[in-house]
């Protein structure tokens, strides 16, 4: 009899659990209004969030295992050395407005994506050489895509391609993902509702997603977002600052440090030959010894401990150690060693006179570090670097500028000396950094748009980058990337400072959350997220 009661109790609890898996409205904040609802034109974080929640993709990268998993495609095969990919698609799927999905939609999406007139940054990742893309619809459930040249990391790139409908009257608003945009009030909120035709089911055969809707409030101020989280008005915060993280931890709010992220914070010197800087300063900034001396004089451990309150690790190079496959594990952190820094500077003819470092010609070493106004962490890092470099006789002036002014100086006038900014590395595959490391690239910040590589090491990086981009062999690509990381570590065109931790907040009512260091950290498994009632 006792066993019977226990069985009945378990059944009851089980039914509660099933109830807890269904319905409800998840709420979290966007920092800004999405700039576009066209998933092919996404560039900002808010639009990226909408794309992730509403877009159906052929392949989804699991943020926990980092493996590509079937989504709209059941299977795929890469051939011709990475130039061709054939997808077998799920059948009988529909968009949120009831329009059927077929291989023709994939063909339409890829043609749109690769149209140069669209200027899609998502499409740029597939563009490894000039030439046209060819799509061949074999059947409504099978398609073959041919690229003009091998594309690195081809399968994973499809994680960012939301398949548009070629026929739907709703155009890009017709969603194949778990949610669709149902309501929008400019500057205030967006309401996403469950896609009634979403194909995915859980292990028990229940249609996903569990949630009825997601409300995304536009909230620029992270402090207000944190207060709303404490009051239970929002359920998730994707990026929490270290200060707020500590406060929420102290208040027993549910926060998690998912570990070092792939984002980097770095300092670089202006090496552009056309910059209006004095010749002697250009000579400092183009000297490897000077850059490495500055790097060794910066106490990265203190930056991580003080500015990020321990929620960051000293950076080693281009790729964060959390990106385990691509990180060159033979590289060690740059040491904090002011004596070594001074030795390097002496090799270049610098000398310490009293408290002032002077170059060969007797010029006192003084430069400015510019960063974007309003970013407290960067301002604090610049202030700590100012104090660190004072110890080796260098005077640093910290300048905060509004972002547009800073961008103009970095990309148009080149009228700056050193800059402190960061990169958000959304892609795991470092191929996404081609636009930074090719010497001819716009974003090769220290000396952009070079007609020919200015230095032998930049020429070697160019060669390695092109080779890895054209190779379908992961081992060869890894070797190339290891060498690129080695060169960047030795030359330090970017002085990498820290890799911030991915700090998130998840309300206890949110079930099945598995925060990841990779974007979107808290809701990457949104289909299976549920609210406890």
């Amino acid at each position: 009899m006792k066993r019977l009661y226990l069985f009945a109790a378990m059944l009851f609890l089980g039914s509660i659990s099933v109830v807890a898996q269904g319905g409800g409205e998840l709420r979290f904040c966007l920092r800004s209004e999405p700039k576009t609802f066209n998933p092919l034109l996404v560039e900002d974080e808010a639009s990226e969030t909408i794309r992730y929640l509403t877009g159906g993709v052929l392949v989804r990268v699991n943020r926990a295992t980092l493996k590509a998993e079937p989504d709209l495609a059941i299977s795929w095969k890469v051939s011709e050395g990475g130039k061709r990919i054939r997808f077998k698609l799920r059948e009988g799927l529909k968009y949120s407005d009831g329009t059927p999905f077929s291989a023709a939609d994939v063909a339409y999406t890829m043609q749109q994506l690769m149209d140069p007139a669209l200027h899609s940054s998502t499409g740029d990742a597939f563009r490894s050489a000039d030439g046209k893309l060819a799509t061949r619809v074999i059947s409504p459930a099978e398609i073959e895509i041919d690229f003009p040249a091998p594309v690195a990391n081809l399968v994973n790139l499809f994680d960012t391609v939301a398949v548009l409908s070629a026929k739907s009257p709703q155009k890009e608003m017709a969603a194949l993902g778990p949610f669709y945009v149902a309501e929008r009030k400019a500057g205030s909120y967006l309401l996403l509702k469950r896609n009634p035709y979403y194909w995915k089911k859980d292990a028990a055969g229940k249609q996903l997603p569990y949630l009825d809707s997601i409300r995304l409030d536009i909230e620029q101020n992270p402090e207000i977002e944190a207060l709303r989280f404490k009051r239970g008005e929002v359920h998730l915060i994707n990026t929490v600052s270290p200060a707020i993280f500590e406060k929420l931890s102290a208040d027993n709010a549910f926060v998690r440090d998912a570990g070092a992220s792939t984002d980097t914070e770095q300092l670089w010197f202006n090496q552009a030959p056309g910059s209006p800087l004095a010749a002697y300063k250009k000579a400092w900034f183009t000297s490897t010894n000077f850059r490495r001396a500055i790097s060794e004089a910066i106490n990265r451990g203190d930056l991580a401990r003080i500015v990020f309150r321990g929620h960051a690790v000293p950076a080693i190079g281009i790729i964060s150690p959390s990106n385990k496959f691509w990180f060159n594990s033979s590289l060690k952190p740059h040491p904090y060693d002011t004596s070594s820094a001074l030795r390097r500077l002496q090799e270049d003819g610098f000398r310490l006179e009293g408290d002032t470092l002077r170059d060969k010609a007797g010029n006192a070493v003084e430069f400015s570090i510019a960063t974007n106004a309003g970013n407290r962490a960067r301002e604090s890092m610049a202030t700590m670097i100012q104090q660190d470099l004072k110890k080796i006789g260098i005077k640093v002036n910290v300048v905060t500028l509004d972002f547009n002014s800073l961008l103009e100086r970095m990309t148009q006038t080149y009228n700056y000396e050193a800059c402190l900014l960061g990169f958000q590395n959304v892609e795991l595959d470092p191929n996404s950094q081609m636009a930074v490391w090719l010497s001819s690239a716009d974003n090769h910040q220290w000396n952009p748009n070079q007609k020919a590589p200015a230095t032998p090491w930049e020429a070697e990086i160019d060669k390695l980058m092109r080779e890895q981009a054209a190779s379908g062999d992961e081992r060869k690509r890894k070797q190339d990337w290891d060498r690129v990381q080695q060169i960047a570590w030795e030359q330090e065109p970017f002085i990498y400072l820290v890799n911030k931790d991915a700090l998130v907040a998840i309300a206890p009512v949110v079930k099945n959350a598995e925060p990841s260091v990779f974007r979107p950290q808290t809701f990457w498994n949104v289909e299976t997220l549920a609210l406890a009632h």
Partner: protein
Amino acid sequence: MKGIRVIAIVVLALTALTILAASHLAPAGYEQQFRETPQAAPSAHHPLGTDDLGRDRWARLLYGMRVSLTLAPLAALFTTVLAGLVGGVAGYFGGWTERCCKLLIDLFLSVPWLFLLITVRAVLPLNVSPEASVTVTFALLGLLGWAASARVICSGAKDLMKSEFVWMARASGFSGMKLVRLHLLPNLRGALLAQFWISIPVFIIAEANLGALGLGVAEPLPSLGSLLRELQETVTLRPEPWRLLPLAVLIVVISSFQVLLKKQEVRA
């Protein structure tokens, strides 16, 4: 009322003494980072604790007051002189001169000064010391802040030019600088002083606003504005009330100025 004025004078005198003796009263340099004790609570070594980078809050408050409470009155003096010149010329001459001056005043009043300040800061050379940077910021505030005061002075000067005693002075052969020196300036003195006192807290708050945008005083130099930026962190504020002291100082100093201002207005 007299008692309150006395208190205001005492507060301002104490403030002036404190900022003059900042280097003696501060336990450490305002830029010195005690990296082993960031965000420390008040203690014997650090009476107001330390900030996020381990800098002594008390030292930063003293030097911040020195920066803001020295440069704001200088900027206020500059703006009052400009206002007196433009407003006085407009009121004295009248006619097309007045119309031209008022056009200039309207132009300055309609300028979105915050964006102008951000733009001017963006085109300034980057490699300037924090001291030079803060001086430029206050000079800009002074240069842009005279228009509203000029309107008041213009109106006062016009009224004076229509008054009987000025008519009599002119009938007696007074004109030009003699008329200005003996009749206009003494009678505009109250209005000018009022504009001066009003401008001081306005500039302190303007600098605080610029500081909140990260465009005020450059690191590591503190100002009341840069200290007030910490109050943006409302979530982290509650258990650390000593962080509110810069705000309390600003309120007390501005209130003291206001009390004295009321007295000046009565005289005017």
